[in-house]
């Protein structure tokens, strides 16, 4: 049945999506356009607004001369480390906050929140001093540990609100069957909040993906640089090669998007799983 109301709604939605895509997508397009331009256009005659595909080989050879692969690898190590650790610790905290009333519950919630208001620049120096003692300077693991502090609480919050929505009866029967709590969490609750796990994973992953301040101060070896520091090194004392930076930035954004698209399927899978059980 097609009613005028439905048509209007569909039209409004279509226009809305177009507007959102234009706002979110234009800078991407412009990055690509900049990457495929040559200096004389960018700085003298004016940027060509369409994508000059013929400049792709030149851009590619410029990018291939850089250690992009290594930077990318370091970034992936950091991002995955941050994701795994944040989810593991965050689901424990989220479950405790969602399911138990215990002394100190308010304090824990408050402490988790506190982490979000700490400017990185502020804990930089004490963390640095601590990492010297722990041998974590110039070390990717150190960067993971420094970053999880910021993304663990977000994961915990997201998982807690998702678990709040899971009816308690579902785990009750398992508890009666003498299943240990941790088993209840991993085998019953977590599958039910899959979409939120996926969302938390994406957020933690991207936080690790974007890590910059700690990496720029804690790392000494160029071979350990993540992509963000590599990109910043383009901003030279004298000039910034725009097309190369934009090309590299696009290259670096792609794996993150791919990760999201992969996880996104989980969001849908989680939904169906939840529907079956619910």
């Amino acid at each position: 049945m097609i009613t005028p109301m439905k048509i209007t709604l569909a039209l409004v939605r279509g226009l809305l999506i177009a507007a959102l895509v234009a706002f979110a997508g234009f800078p991407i397009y412009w990055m690509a356009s900049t990457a495929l331009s040559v200096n004389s256009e960018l700085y003298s005659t004016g940027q060509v607004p369409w994508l000059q595909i013929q400049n792709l080989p030149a851009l590619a050879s410029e990018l291939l001369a850089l250690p992009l692969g290594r930077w990318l690898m370091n970034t992936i190590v950091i991002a995955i480390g941050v994701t795994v650790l944040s989810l593991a610790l965050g689901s424990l905290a989220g479950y405790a906050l969602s399911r138990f009333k215990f002394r100190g519950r308010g304090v824990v919630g408050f402490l988790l929140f506190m982490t979000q208001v700490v400017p990185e620049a502020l804990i930089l120096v004490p963390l640095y001093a601590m990492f010297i003692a722990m041998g974590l300077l110039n070390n990717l693991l150190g960067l993971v540990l420094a970053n999880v502090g910021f993304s663990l609480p977000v994961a915990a919050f997201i998982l807690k609100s998702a678990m709040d929505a899971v009816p308690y009866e579902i785990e009750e029967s398992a508890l009666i069957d003498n299943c240990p709590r941790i088993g209840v969490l991993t085998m019953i609750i977590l599958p039910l909040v899959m979409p939120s796990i996926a969302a938390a994973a994406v957020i933690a992953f991207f936080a690790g993906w974007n890590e910059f301040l700690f990496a720029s101060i804690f790392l000494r070896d160029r071979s350990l640089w993540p992509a963000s520091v590599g990109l910043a090194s383009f901003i030279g004392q004298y000039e910034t090669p725009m097309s190369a930076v934009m090309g590299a930035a696009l290259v670096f954004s792609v794996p993150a998007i791919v990760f999201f698209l992969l996880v996104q399927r989980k969001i849908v899978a989680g939904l169906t799983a939840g529907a079956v059980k619910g």
Partner: protein
Amino acid sequence: MAFRLNSRRSFALAMLAVSGAAASGQIALAQSAKEPVTLVIANSQWVDALRGKNLWNALLKYKQVAPHVTLEQEAIPSSEFDNKMTTEFGAGLGPDIAMMQEGLFYSIADAGYLVDVSKAVEGVKNLNRTNDNGVINGKRVGVAWQRAVYALIYNKPLLDAAKVKPPSNLDELIAASKAVTAATGAIGFTSRHQIADFGGWFMDFQNWAYGYGVNWVDGKGKLTINTPQAIAAMAAFKKMYDAKIIPIGDTMPTQRTRFKESKVAFSIDNSGGTLNIASGGALAAKDLYAAPLPFEHPGAHQQIFVGVSTHSKKQKAAIEFLAWLVSPDGQQALRDASGPDALATDVPITEAFRAANPWAETFAELAVKSRSTLIPGREVDTGPIMRTVMEALEKVLVAGADPKIALAEAQKQADSKF
């Protein structure tokens, strides 16, 4: 996913092993077998595409005289260099040797993190005045690495096309810029003009300040911000800003690349920036010229010093390296990679370079009278002091404040803070 757990120590051990292996072959040749040693050298220039490699290769010539020494880069992007050095030195770590802009150099020296390197310059007779500020509180804690002096540079073909001559004062500069734009469509002049670029802008602005005779401090060490000269310098900068000859909103890297692409007639830049413009762009090095600044008095220079860290466990080797650096061999090696920057000793620019770069000569001449961008006696506080000055200038430019009033306010702030 396995983490790379290479701590600083194991990495150093590995380097030691490598350098040891390299050195062992030479032991038979060398008179005395010296302990292999690795020196870590921090410099933001290592990241610069072309210049970084050239400078590094110059330093690697040290291997010929000291085969037991392995040099290792600590490469840090210039935007993060000061933060990182400050953090590392403050924590008792850091490189053995660092090349630092004068401002950072003073702060690190002031905190007592630089060792006495007078042994390195013992018996060196030809050290020039670029090394003077390397002596702090009577102790030599650094030698000059490079000094980049400022000049008015111009694109000669554009000037020829518009039939204008290099200007000798501000009004001529504005007129000439407008003439070039009218004749060729190119941008007249470039200049830093945004607080977002504070670190570079305040150093560039010292050219205007010094050019109008400003001394930010009087003979007794009192800050003199609110002077007729400073008012004149700000009014002059405002006049240039309002003349619409610069690309408002452009960052300096963008403006430099525009110059490189032959799209700009004039700029005030230092020799490092000019060397960058002269290499690898549409504008041929032979078409780039330099003239004295269009002001009454001499302008400024940026200075980089080399220092040795008190945290280093290889101070002796580091000082030996510095001794080589100021020796004729080291200076010659550095000269070839440094363009026309003034070095620790007066090594002449090579004939080949001079012939290919008509702009270089002027820079060498201007280096004789240029002044440091730091405020004498207030070196460590120069950044914060200049921030009050630049914020006053910003009020003049963006909000149309009267320079007199803005500087009076800045003086009041400076008096209460410093």
